């Protein structure tokens, strides 16, 4: 009797379904990879499927976190994949030109050059969207298309291979036995959560996403907020670009970050942020990105034939989206649950108890 309301409160939590899907996907792997959950020490660092998922998923988490804020303002950023390619291309071509590729100063300067380029892309997107009033999907499409060309221009259409140990750390190296990228992701997520939940910034972003004009009228500088989120999103994409190029020690202008914008948008949606803007959930996005990465790994490990990869992926995504839809859950689970509730005798006291936690919960959701 006491577990039912608690269970219902749990299932109503906005992270419940994404986390449930993530756990289900992880469990699916076990029959195919018996020691899927085992993590062992190899060459002084942790090694295992879970570590791989986080390592290869890090760039997607970063891009998706940036995307979350853009989507929260009611926008969208299609240019992140191209920004990934540009950042990687600039950084690697700078490093490859140096005689001592292992010098720390060289690596920091190169990363700085790459990230500045990312910020410039973000400023451009923000300028077009907020100042010129161009539809975000069109404004960011420009860099999505042209940016990859810029990246190819920088690399001459070649794959640039570098041999820099310090640069290898950020996306492919290990620190304190864990992939270094985990620390980068943790830092970015922590800073984002702090800025949006411990200051008024998150509220302002949500308010701009809810109604930009009304926000402006109450005194919120919605233009500035919008430009800020596009710059932040591009910066996240830039860091992801560093990771991707560092992971393989090579910059590939053609393929680095290809279609990552779509995976990132999907991660945001799976995480429960609505594309219409307004409320957002950083935690949900992180889980959403992990769901997508786990799905990719699952496809590789359970031996889905290559021709059916995309169909399999689509089928899982459809299931996830349906589970996320309150209307669908109402239709499928709702009827059964109400029947279960009326069957046992103490149905009367349960219903008010279940209803009781509802008002306070919605208020916490608003404040979140």
């Amino acid at each position, binding site marked *: 009797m006491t577990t039912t309301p608690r269970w219902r409160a749990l299932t109503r939590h906005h992270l419940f379904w994404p986390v449930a899907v993530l756990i289900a996907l992880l469990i699916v792997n076990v029959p195919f990879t018996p020691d899927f959950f085992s993590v062992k020490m190899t060459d002084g660092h942790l090694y295992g499927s879970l570590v791989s998922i986080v390592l290869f998923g890090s760039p997607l988490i970063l891009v998706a976190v940036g995307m979350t804020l853009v989507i929260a303002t009611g926008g969208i950023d299609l240019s992140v994949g191209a920004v990934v390619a540009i950042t990687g291309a600039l950084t690697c071509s700078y490093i490859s030109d140096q005689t001592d590729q292992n010098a720390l100063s060289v690596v920091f300067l190169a990363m700085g050059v790459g990230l500045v380029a990312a910020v410039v892309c973000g400023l451009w997107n923000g300028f077009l969207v907020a100042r010129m009033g161009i539809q975000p999907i069109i404004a960011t499409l420009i860099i999505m298309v042209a940016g990859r060309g810029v990246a*190819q221009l920088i690399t001459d259409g070649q794959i640039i291979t570098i041999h820099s140990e310090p640069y290898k750390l950020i996306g492919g190296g290990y620190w304190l036995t864990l992939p270094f990228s985990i620390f980068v992701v943790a830092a970015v997520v922590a800073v984002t959560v702090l800025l949006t939940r411990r200051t008024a910034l998150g509220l302002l972003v949500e308010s701009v996403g809810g109604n930009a004009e009304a926000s402006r009228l109450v005194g919120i500088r919605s233009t500035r907020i919008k430009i800020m989120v596009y710059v932040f999103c591009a910066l996240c994409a830039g860091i992801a670009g560093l990771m991707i190029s560092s*992971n393989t020690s090579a910059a590939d202008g053609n393929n680095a970050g290809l279609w990552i914008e779509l995976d990132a948008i999907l991660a945001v949606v799976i995480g429960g942020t609505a594309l219409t803007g307004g409320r957002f959930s950083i935690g949900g996005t992180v889980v959403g990105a992990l769901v997508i990465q786990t799905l990719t790994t699952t496809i590789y490990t359970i031996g889905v034939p290559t021709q059916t990869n995309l169909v399999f992926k689509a089928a899982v995504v459809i299931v996830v989206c349906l589970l996320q839809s309150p209307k669908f859950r109402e239709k499928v689970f709702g009827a059964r649950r109400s029947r279960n509730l009326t069957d046992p005798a103490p149905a009367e006291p349960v219903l008010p108890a279940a209803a009781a936690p509802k008002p306070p919960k919605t208020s916490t959701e608003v404040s979140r």
Partner: protein
Amino acid sequence: MLTRRNFLTAAVGAAAAAGLAACAKEDGKSSDSPGGGSKTLTLGFSQVGSESGWRTANSDSVKSAAKESGYTLKFSDAQQKQENQISAIRNYIAQKVDVIAFSPVVVTGWDAVLKEAKAAKIPVVLTDRSVETSDESLYVTLVGSDFTDEGRRAAKILEKVLDKAGHKGPVKIAQLEGTTGAAPAIERAKGFKEVMDADHADDWKIVVSQTGEFTRAGGKQVMAAFLQSNPDINVLYAHNDDMGLGAIQAIEAAGKKPGKDILIVTVDGVKDGFIAMSEGKINAIVECNPLLGPQLMDVVQKVKDGEKLERWIKTEESDFLQDQAKDALPSRKY
């Protein structure tokens, strides 16, 4: 207002002048080929684009071979667009070049422009990739690689690699496929399987096979997953060097030695692949040669001399084992 108009006029004037100059240049070039008698052939070549190191090496090879043979080369880059390529071919027809050669961007949609070339009596040679046409007589020959044969050669060279390593017991192969649906991916898998089914049906087995999209990042990620689900893999066959290079990093992260614990055979032969092979991390590379310039010039001469040619002239390619890597490395151009 006035200044702006002046500026515009000046800009238009400059552009027109530049255009005229360009035309004059083109005219000068093409006029000296008939003037030079029958000795200097003019070859119009339309390249796909410059998407990879392989392609750049391919372009350079055509350019330098044309120079060596003393042909006049008209080179254009289609930037991956069929319409660019069609207009380039039409230009060559208008300029009355002696032979047209091109690497088609896509397989279909060439009939109209190839008929125009035929009507103008200009022979067409395809390089690297083939086309589908209703009329076989629309092109003379194709100079390019046989991807199925590359797959067969990969399997053959794997026999040697296993021999050298003194491998005993079952051979558990992981295959990294190219982009799903791409001709090289399909045919390299097919050729490999052919030899495997014929000669090694009982001791070789492809335990996992998945696309790595021909990229390093793809190869690394897929291989990392393979090593988890099938830790007993002892051979890797990658459809290109880049996926193999990515996979090497995943193998190292798993605490295994690429080239020793897992024997690696790749296709292509780019420079980075040869570097990895000279370090002992790749065991064998099946070359897919982009340096078909000299062969193409040979074909062009034969076409002009009216010799009969085969429909498909296969690129001269070789296979490399580890001990050849160091010697071959300095001569790798791409």
